[in-house]
């Protein structure tokens, strides 16, 4: 299977999914969909051993060769790890969704098409080596996320959340595109690998910092970093399988992937180090602090995801310090990259299982409000066990993988003391302290999540449904993840060697040539002299005390003003742009076709006059003119009389017939000047349009509507000026174009080639279908669109009238 094909496999399968959903209603569509991620996992697993040896794979598909845009799939340790996460978690999520979404009530066709679309997009993001195709897939993930969040589109909150996530992530995506373009211009290539090779020369360039910041905005919006995180809690309106998949395990990690992937390019700048580390830590603290305030199970998890993403982000930032130090210090900081990837993997396992448990609780009790829940332990023992494993891992308690990576994280923040380039002195202390405080809150919300749901008093009268254990099928996926949580704790180095080291080698190409060079060994026990150990013990102690006294100190959240929040700012901004755009367009979109015609003609006059004047184009040359024949004068007189009739008549019927007369006389001119094609077309068009006018007659307002008063005079003056302007301009252009032949007429070319190359005799028609066939194709497309528009407008009007009549009948 070629790598490119593997990326697009989900989209290809998505094409048949709606048919499967319609035709085979007895089998849940999810079972068919499940085949895709399972096949892909099997496919990517075969690469593992070669990737561990440091081999990389590449596959290229020329997309737009003339613009040097291609889809390049590049597999190294980092992209393989992500690909396995995407397809592996994807398989579990699809399996879970089979039991979560009812096959008779839900629009499964839509759901799985979106999900497969996302899968392809995400694989594309993590495997693209070409910046433009990376951007393309990146936006595709935003769009599929939008569709999935809005899956229950009849709910207001779903639509709001979908729009919010799209607004923010697409904004970030556009910023990122700007950064990519700058990078592409500076490096004269769009290939990430080639840019990495040029990194040392790129650093000094003028726009390097701008490109860096723009790319980071893209990464921060996608990975829900402060202050862009606000879309993630609202995205929780999506069905839970989606939240587990997109909004915790994969899509929100695309920003982390981007930071990891671009580390070799940008890390040489200190701005990168401090931005990534600082924003990451701030997000970690912010997210963990506000997670405790939430009352919705999924909202707790959303804030916890925000904070965990911040944690990984800051680790990646600390890891990039390795580019600024030498000697032994390098490994101290590459260790942070190692910890980042390790925690990223652990987070996918425990957070995925927790989301699925939140979904199960919602599914089996009918609510996710933690204030109504409690005492489910005895009713849902298996769910409780899984939730315990997930939460304890999240809290960083031993026997679960979260403990290992959390210790590594604390170690990494402590390692900042060795980086004193800018005479940090004691400033570095700030980082471990923030990390420690955030860890305390993480501990608190982890316990809050699991104990408030499953311990305490059972409140059956508050629950919409009678609680009971979920079906076995629904429990499989979270159970698999929970088992992984424990396995990783006991054999962390197996996972370390297989997945993490190759990925770290991709982030730190300067430090490590092949994955085997990455010499880290994960240990649960570091001895009594490890500061991280005491920090962890402190977290447990303080965290437990804070959890016990949770009711006493949570009122402080109420002291924060709601209006000043980031969400308030977002709402204000959306409202402003909504209203502003509305006001702006309603100022000129009056709905009156007369105004529109005035705008258009005025623009034509202005443009033509401006060009004529600046180019000094007007010339009049009276030599070489043909003599005027008698019947030409005659036709002109008829033309003028009919035109004047249109202006002065009081009857619309007369006006229309006079207009027809104008058309026919023009056709006569065509005949005199030997343009039979034009004459023929003009004649038929006049005939048909007169008939059309007669049809439209009925709908037009009374003609004397505008006949009275001062406004009418102004209106007429306006029209007079416009008409005069157009007439004068067109006449001037006609005279000028006749008077100077600057370039050779193209008709000679047509005459020479019409038979020999186009195989025709009638130049006019050959122009239409061959020389300028593109124009014709677009014209008939426009015609079609226009007619559909007219049909739409009139049918809506008819429907409205019918509706009115119904009301009257009542």
């Amino acid at each position, binding site marked *: 299977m070629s790598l490119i094909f593997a990326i697009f496999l989900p989209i290809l399968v998505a094409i048949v999914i709606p048919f499967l959903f319609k035709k085979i209603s007895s089998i849940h569509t999810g079972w068919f969909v499940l085949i895709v991620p399972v096949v892909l996992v099997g496919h990517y697993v075969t690469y593992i051993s070669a990737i561990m040896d440091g081999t990389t794979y590449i596959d290229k598909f020329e997309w737009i060769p003339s613009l040097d845009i291609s889809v390049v799939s590049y597999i190294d340790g980092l992209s393989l790890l992500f690909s396995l996460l995407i397809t592996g978690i994807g398989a579990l999520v699809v399996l879970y969704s089979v039991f979560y979404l009812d096959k008779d009530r839900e629009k499964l066709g839509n759901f799985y098409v979106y999900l497969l679309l996302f899968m392809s997009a995400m694989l594309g993001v993590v495997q693209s080596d070409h910046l433009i195709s990376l951007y393309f897939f990146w936006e595709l993930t935003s769009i599929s996320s939008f569709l999935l969040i809005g899956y229950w589109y009849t709910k207001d909150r779903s639509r709001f959340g979908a729009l919010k996530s799209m607004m923010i992530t697409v904004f970030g995506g556009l910023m990122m595109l700007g950064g990519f373009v700058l990078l592409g211009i500076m490096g004269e290539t769009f290939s990430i690998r080639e840019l990495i090779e040029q990194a040392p020369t790129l650093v000094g360039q003028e726009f390097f910092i701008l490109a860096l910041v723009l790319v980071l905005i893209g990464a921060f919006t996608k990975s829900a970093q402060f202050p862009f995180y606000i879309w993630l809690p609202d995205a929780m309106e999506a069905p839970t399988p989606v939240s587990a998949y997109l909004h915790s395990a994969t899509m929100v990690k695309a920003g982390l992937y981007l930071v990891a992937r671009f580390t070799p390019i940008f890390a040489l700048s200190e701005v990168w180090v401090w931005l990534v580390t600082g924003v990451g830590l701030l997000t970690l603290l912010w997210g963990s602090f506000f997670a405790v305030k939430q009352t919705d199970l999924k909202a707790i998890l959303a804030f916890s995801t925000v904070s965990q993403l911040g944690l990984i982000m800051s680790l990646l930032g600390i890891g990039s310090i390795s580019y600024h130090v030498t000697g032994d210090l390098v490994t101290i900081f590459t260790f942070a990259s190692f910890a980042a990837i390790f925690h990223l993997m652990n987070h996918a396992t425990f957070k995925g299982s927790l989301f699925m448990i939140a979904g199960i609780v919602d599914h089996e009790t009918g609510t996710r409000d933690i204030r109504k829940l409690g005492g489910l332990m005895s009713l849902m023992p298996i769910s409780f066990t899984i939730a315990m494993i997930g939460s304890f891992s999240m809290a960083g308690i031993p026997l679960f993988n979260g403990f290992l990576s959390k210790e590594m994280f604390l170690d990494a923040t402590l390692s900042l003391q060795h980086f004193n380039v800018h005479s940090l002195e004691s400033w570095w202390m700030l980082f471990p302290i923030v990390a420690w405080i955030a860890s305390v809150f993480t501990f608190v919300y982890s316990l809050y999540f699991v104990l408030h749901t499953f311990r305490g008093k059972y409140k059956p009268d508050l629950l919409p449904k009678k609680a009971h254990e979920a079906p076995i099928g629904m429990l499989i996926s979270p159970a698999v993840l929970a088992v992984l949580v424990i396995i990783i704790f006991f054999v962390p180095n197996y996972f370390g060697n297989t997945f993490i080291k190759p990925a770290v080698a991709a982030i730190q190409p300067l430090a490590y040539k092949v994955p085997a060079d990455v010499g880290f060994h994960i240990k649960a026990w570091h001895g009594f002299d490890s500061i991280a150990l005491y920090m962890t013990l402190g977290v447990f102690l303080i965290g437990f005390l804070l959890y016990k006294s949770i009711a006493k100190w949570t009122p402080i959240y109420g002291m924060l003003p709601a209006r000043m929040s980031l969400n308030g700012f977002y709402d204000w901004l959306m409202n402003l742009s909504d209203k502003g755009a509305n006001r702006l367009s309603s100022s000129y979109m009056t709905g009156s076709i007369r105004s529109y015609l005035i705008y258009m003609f005025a623009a034509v006059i202005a443009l033509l006059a401006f060009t004529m004047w600046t180019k000094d184009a007007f010339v009049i040359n009276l030599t070489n003119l043909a003599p005027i024949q008698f019947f030409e004068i005659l036709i002109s007189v008829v033309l003028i009389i009919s035109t004047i009739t249109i202006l002065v008549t009081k009857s619309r019927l007369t006006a229309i017939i006079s207009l027809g007369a104008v058309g026919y006389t023009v056709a006569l001119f065509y005949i005199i000047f030997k343009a039979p094609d034009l004459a023929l077309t003009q004649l038929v068009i006049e005939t048909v349009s007169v008939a059309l006018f007669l049809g*439209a007659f009925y709908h037009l307002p009374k003609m004397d509507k505008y006949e009275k008063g001062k406004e009418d005079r102004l209106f007429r003056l306006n029209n007079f000026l416009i008409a005069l302007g157009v007439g004068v301009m067109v006449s001037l252009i006609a005279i000028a174009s006749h008077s100077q032949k600057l370039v050779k007429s193209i008709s000679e070319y047509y005459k020479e080639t019409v038979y020999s190359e186009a195989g025709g005799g009638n130049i006019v028609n050959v122009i239409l279908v061959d020389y300028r066939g593109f124009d014709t194709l677009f014209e008939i497309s426009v015609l079609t669109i226009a007619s559909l528009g007219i049909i739409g407008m009139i049918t809506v009007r008819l429907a409205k009238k019918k509706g009115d009549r119904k009301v009257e009948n009542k």
Partner: protein
Amino acid sequence: MKTNDLIIQTTTKVVFFIIFLFSIHIFFAGHYTPGGGFVGGLVMSSAIVLLMLAFDLKTVRDMLPFNYTVITAIGLLISLLTAAGSIYFNVPFFTHVYDYFNLPLLGETSIHTAMFFDTGVYLVVVGVTMNIIQMIGGDE
């Protein structure tokens, strides 16, 4: 008031077919003499308009029970596929080909892919004009 349309109705019955044949003629002749898909389509529409004037909208709709939106769509599709067909032969989009064939009855005839393209134009023009006239005329 009862109108007497006898003359126009009787004439229309004959003239309609003449115009119709004329529209076919100028469509096919278009590549060498004045005419083509656009004019041909317009002439065809004017024939139908004549029918509508002589009889009424409903009668014409019963006589020619076409869905003009579908005709428009088919026409657009034919044009687009003719233009895109060249990609299949690995030549640029919109490359036309032609050759001369000895057809029964017609003798030596040139067949040009532009003709298929023009067929699409013809159908779109008929579809669009009839659709608009029917819609506006029928909206009471």
